[in-house]
């Protein structure tokens, strides 16, 4: 079923569209996530701002949990893409997160937020991933994540 995960990413990968909503995972729809292509061609995830993402009312800031969810999603997507590239076939199911550690550096302003992830090691059993979430500039991250996935 990673096919489902990657279906929405395909048109972005092929360069047909700049971004595409992720419609086949309910929680991604709940957050409003979109896959998009960075200027360096890397695939990243965007979480467009909406009021429902707010976690602290005054001053309004994105809920750290939703930023964490965005980071985890970027990580899952990067593992699915890396695994398909390595095996030239999609994974049978979505990689399961074993653990994730998130470090928060800046509160999330009430605007869109982005995340991209790098697979540091793609093993047969475990994948190790780092991800970064940012708003105005990648150089000023809101949060970074270190996570490991159990490969299906």
């Amino acid at each position, binding site marked *: 079923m990673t096919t489902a995960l990657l279906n929405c990413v395909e048109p972005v990968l092929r360069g047909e569209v700049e971004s595409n909503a992720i419609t086949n995972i309910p929680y991604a729809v709940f957050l409003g996530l979109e896959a998009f292509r960075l200027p360096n061609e890397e695939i990243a995830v965007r979480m467009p701002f909406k009021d429902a993402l707010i976690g602290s009312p005054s001053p309004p800031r994105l809920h*750290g949990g939703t930023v964490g969810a965005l980071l985890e999603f970027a990580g899952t997507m990067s593992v699915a893409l890396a695994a398909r590239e390595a095996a030239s076939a999609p994974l049978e199911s979505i990689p399961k997160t074993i653990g994730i550690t998130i470090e928060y550096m800046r509160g999330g302003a009430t605007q869109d937020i982005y995340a991209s992830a790098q697979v540091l090691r793609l093993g047969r059993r475990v994948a190790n991933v780092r991800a970064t979430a940012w708003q105005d500039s990648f150089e000023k991250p809101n949060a970074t994540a270190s996570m490991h996935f159990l490969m299906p």
Partner: protein
Amino acid sequence: MSKDEAPVHSGPVPAQFAQRFLDAVPQLGALNVSFESLEDGKAIIRLPYDEALVGFPETGVIAGGAIYTVMDSVAGIAVFAALGTFVPLATLDLRIDYLKPATPHLDIFGEARCYKLTRQIAFVRGRAHHGDSEKPIAHVTGTFFLERPAQKAEGAA
């Protein structure tokens, strides 16, 4: 006890304040999170099962991100309970270990306790489960920064 170590106590933040805190957070409203209990410094909130939160469509298992959000929030309530007041909090880091997949169609309880409080930092542990905390779905540890004036140490430059 050194000056910068406030005692960890509980109780002064009553349940209705915890509920008011939850009501003021749009994301928790979107998740339909409700307050469950706050006793002896242990805060518990409830996330109802919702198809909209599914992260694994083939099994109906809730996305880890939704559980993570619940744990971040209940950790905050545990800090308020330990402080006895509301102070703006910033999560410095939060680690979650997913011990086993959540069971589809069951509500998820997030519970947390602040086990150490200093003037500026709160340390929290918690777990998510389906009603029996001895059968956890996830375990979290977090560190929070308390946005309040640092106490000036005597003789400090």
